[in-house]
């Protein structure tokens, strides 16, 4: 792989010479796509970082059309220079002759935290205060002006919840390997809870949580994971954000963050919609488990990562999903 990367960077940076590629190390982060870190050096000037990450296309959970490495790359490019901090994405390559599958090369930022799991309570609160400001800024972006219409707006704002549910039910049915009464009961319940009104359509991250950021000294340097980005109801992002943050900082602080969001955006929290999207995001976790199990069960040789993703990483969300369906 280093040889191919050497040839690739040399082709992409014709103004420099003597390109050298350091050893590649596989990142332990992320469970669906392989990512490698490497350093590069060259003689001459290029507006590209020397510390780089290579993100591969093959995913062990979702696939086209629900996620897309190319779409994610375009979203990153559109966000560069906006009020939403992102890492620089340099190239998307879909010619398989380089590495056998499409890939992206992007900036790598070192000496940062990728999770708030081990932060102090004060640090967690400071980071999440910063995060809600970023989400407010993200939901206030003019997505048309940024050229993000390709993400596909819903037919009407009010049709978004139904279209969202339909899309992910399709994914669930496509990937399901056996009967799953819990998920089916959850879908049936969700289909009767669709909110009737959506106040606006914004750029959503899809699943926005405190383990999808890079932070240092209590400040967020970059917001990560835009592969599920879409245009839709901001309450959907806030519901996932709330689910992901409550175990870290408690209900009261999350309510404070939601109030802060309303203050920054002028958008009140729609409680009916919020309840629907909370249950939807729990259902979505079940779809993650379903797609990961499918990957585990249908690939040869099977790999442990998707099995562990299906059975362990989604466990706390699955427990909450069961609780939301049964009320027990």
């Amino acid at each position: 792989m280093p040889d191919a990367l050497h040839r690739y960077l040399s082709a992409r940076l014709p103004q420099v010479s003597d390109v050298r590629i350091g050893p590649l190390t596989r990142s332990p982060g992320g469970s669906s796509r392989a990512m490698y870190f490497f350093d590069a050096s060259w003689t001459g000037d290029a507006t590209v970082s020397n510390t780089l990450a290579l993100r591969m296309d093959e995913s062990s959970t979702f696939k086209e059309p629900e996620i897309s490495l190319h779409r994610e790359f375009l979203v990153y490019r559109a966000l560069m220079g906006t009020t939403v901090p992102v890492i620089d994405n340099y190239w998307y390559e879909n010619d398989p002759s380089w590495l056998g599958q499409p890939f992206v090369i992007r900036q790598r930022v070192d000496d940062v935290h990728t999770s708030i799991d081990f932060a102090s309570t004060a640090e967690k609160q400071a980071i999440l205060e910063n995060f809600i400001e970023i989400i407010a800024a993200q939901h206030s972006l003019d997505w048309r002006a940024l050229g993000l219409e390709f993400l596909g707006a819903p037919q009407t704002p009010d049709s978004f919840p139904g279209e969202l549910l339909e899309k992910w039910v399709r994914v669930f049915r496509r990937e399901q390997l056996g009967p799953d009464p819990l998920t089916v009961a959850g879908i049936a319940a969700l289909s009767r809870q669709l909110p009737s009104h959506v106040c606006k359509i914004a750029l959503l991250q899809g699943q926005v949580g405190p383990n999808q950021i890079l932070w240092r000294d209590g400040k967020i340097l970059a917001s990560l994971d835009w592969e599920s980005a879409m245009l839709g109801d901001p309450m959907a992002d806030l519901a996932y954000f709330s689910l992901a943050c409550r175990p870290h900082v408690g209900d009261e602080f999350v309510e404070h963050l939601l109030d802060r969001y309303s203050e920054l955006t002028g958008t009140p929290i729609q409680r009916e919609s919020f309840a629907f999207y909370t249950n939807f995001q729990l259902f979505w976790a079940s779809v993650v488990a379903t797609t990961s199990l499918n990957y585990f069960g249908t690939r040869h040789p099977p790999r442990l990562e998707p099995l562990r993703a299906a059975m362990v990483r989604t466990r706390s969300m699955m427990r909450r999903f069961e609780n939301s369906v049964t009320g027990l």
Partner: protein
Amino acid sequence: MFYSLDSVLEAVQACIRDDLWPETSSPWADRQARSAIWALEHVRERLAHGRELLLSEHQQLTAVLAEVERVRALCPELAAALESVVTVEAGPRPAAELLDPVLEGEVRQLRQAVEQLAELVPDLGGEQLSGLRDALMRYLHDQDRRIESVVTIAHTC
């Protein structure tokens, strides 16, 4: 043989945890070691409790479907609502009669029927259907706990 399969699995876990893991410097290898230890523990739990959990699920699924039959018999006006739920010939039987392949096959069939019932969840209101709804919800809850019991490992990995 004078040793159990469980002791072999435990030894493999110890080998990964105590011999290989400390020697790894790659974060990715570290993560894979954790996954391997988890998977071996999952296998040990399945070997130790898998049949017992499947029998318990079989019993609960047949109870849910017996409730469907009861509602069909007592409330003909509700029979149409339950039309999509197929009848499965897999009633409760002594555990000894259910060999593993039969048990697995029947549980799959029963789950399929209960999945059809699950599609009707929002319609299972009213007093006449409360017993059926309760049985279904109890099954969904207990099944989640059964799964949890074989995938959640107490020690860190």
